[in-house]
């Protein structure tokens, strides 16, 4: 079953289109270099469970999103159940539960930014990326746009995060230029 956006409030991360399945074969992520890196992380904590967030982060870094198969891989390594990991993954909006575009665009729409016109920035992104709606990925696979809660830059409305880059004072007009600079 899929848990789509609720009727009672805007979803931060929309579900993928219905009937969308991602059962491509899973190549283990934590081998070689990555495994050594995970072991280093593990050595910092008293319990394996404590390394869950960084492990998920590594997985997402490598694969772009956190798949069920990836969860199974981490579950085996950290000796925690996939269900537990799934709960964690779904709690944090920073983990993608389905594939996203190469450029993951997060627009702050919390009150201060909203007052300064963040909604129009969102509209502009949706229009110029061709994503259609929040959480969906553009047909060319390049973009996914979502709304986020306060990015901690209220003085520079509207802040936008594209992957790991932070852009301040974005206006609807500056959107095409920003997009053009992305590969």
């Amino acid at each position, binding site marked *: *079953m899929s*848990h789509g956006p*609720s*009727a*009672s*409030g805007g*979803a931060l991360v929309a579900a993928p289109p219905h009937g969308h399945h991602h059962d491509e074969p899973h190549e283990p992520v934590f081998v070689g270099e990555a495994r050594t890196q995970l072991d280093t992380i593990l050595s910092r904590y008293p319990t394996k469970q404590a390394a869950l967030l960084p492990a998920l982060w590594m997985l997402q870094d490598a694969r772009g999103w956190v798949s*069920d198969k990836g*969860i199974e891989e981490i579950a085996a390594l950290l000796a*925690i*159940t*996939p*269900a*537990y*990991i*799934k*709960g*964690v993954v*779904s*709690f944090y909006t920073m983990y993608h539960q389905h594939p996203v575009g190469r450029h993951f665009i997060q627009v702050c729409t919390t009150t201060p930014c909203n007052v300064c016109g963040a909604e129009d920035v969102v509209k502009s992104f949706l229009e110029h990326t061709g994503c259609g709606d929040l959480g969906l990925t553009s047909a060319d696979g390049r973009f996914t746009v979502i709304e986020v809660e306060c990015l901690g830059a209220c003085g520079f409305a509207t802040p936008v995060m594209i992957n790991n880059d932070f852009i301040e004072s974005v206006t609807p007009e500056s959107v095409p230029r920003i997009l053009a600079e992305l590969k």
Partner: protein
Amino acid sequence: MVSLTIEGRPVTVPDGMSILEAAKTAGVLVPHYCYHPGLPVAGVCRMCLVEVEKMPKLAPACATSVMEGQVVHVHSPKALEARKGVLEFLLINHPLDCPICDQAGECELQDYTFAEGRADSRYREPKRFNPVEDFGGDVLYVQNRCILCTRCVRFMSDVADEPVLNVSERGDRAFIGKAEGHDLTNPWAGNVIDLCPVGALLSKDFLNKARAWELDRAPTVCTGCSQGCNAVVETRDNVPVRLKPRPNDAVNQYYMCEVGRQSYREFARRDRADQPLVRINGTLTEVDWEDAVTAAVGALSGKRVVVLASPNLSNEALFLLERLVAQLNGQGVFRVARGETVPLPGVADLALREERAANAAGARLLGFAEVTTVGSALRHDDALLVVGDALDGVTPSELAALSSLVFVGTTIPTAVAERAVAVLPITNTVEEEGTFTNLRGRVQRFLQGRTAPGVARPSWFVLTDLLAATGGAAEFHLPADVFAAMVSTHQAFAGLDYESLGMHGLPVLASETATAGAAI
């Protein structure tokens, strides 16, 4: 110990107890959802808010320890107002579809909303809707009704030690989730259905079978294995439809395994022997009880009699059988089905036991020897008296050497239909009362939960008749009489009294004896 006042009642309770538990000792119920005495405290539902004098804010009674001299108000206007607010929030999205909800009639949300909730809702927005999900095993998840108390999650992680449930997503989108392909197939998972305070987790098996208020209930002891979990058998129009755990700290806390839960089906069988039968001109023919008993005794006398008893017979029945064995100069044996031992990790000494019968310990204490095959106990020309054993797996060749066969039981096996001289129909566990001895030597009572089919009689009653007819002294009018006789003649049961066993049972003196040979 700490002394405090709850709703004007003075109570003295152990240090560190929660206000909620302390209130129970004063006979005051503090409404609650997430709290359950068998689970770690989570304090997430806020339904247990109470007013404590000198504390600036309302306190969650489940997560607040008692303090010397505390004055607690459970039903003060402030506390009531707060809980009314909690209920209003819970009902923002909760559909009040009680008329079709399987939990209606035993739902804590329904109860507290009735007792303390608002008469109307201030929300006009449409409610959130999410589809029902099959959690695997016997469990169905109706997300719309979930109040996110996390009892199910905590049970699976802390008690069953198999964390397959989680809280997925967060805030107003949160729901109970599980990872793809990881189902609730744990042999103890069914307990989440009982733990769920609302109709969010439902039993597929029980779904739409009955409304809670149509059911009759009787305390019983599960016959699924030698653990002896305390249970309640629920019947609708005299048909057993469900078996639920009955709390007993000394045996099963609040829990029961899947094998036990499903064992109600055996009690609900419809192919029951319900008339005494005697073989006349080669055919089993209905007769009255007197003739059947006479025929049975006739078939047994003058031979060496092997009594094959079921380890699911009560202590009372086994005691009478033991006397019958002595009277007939015979031998008493039993077989017990075996399976895998499946512990519930979070509860000490609770497991689905290897011995899948309720009273193997009782059978041993009462002088019955365990055999693996029926044939091994039989010699040429023996008479076989089968009581309760369904003769599963017994081959015709094993019975070939018998001179006669008498069957006392609930359903007629093929071998019996072919060979028995007499068939005496008895009641099953939920149709009679008596006691079982579990593997730790705890003697526990079970009560009658439904009426017997036809003219089937309680096992102790039939065995009393047989004993009398073979010339043995037998003057019993109640199971309690049989129990008293057993106690007075068996050192192992010394000191026990039928009434004072209560509904939670008591250990026998020689519980070591009972344990010997039992699977731990």
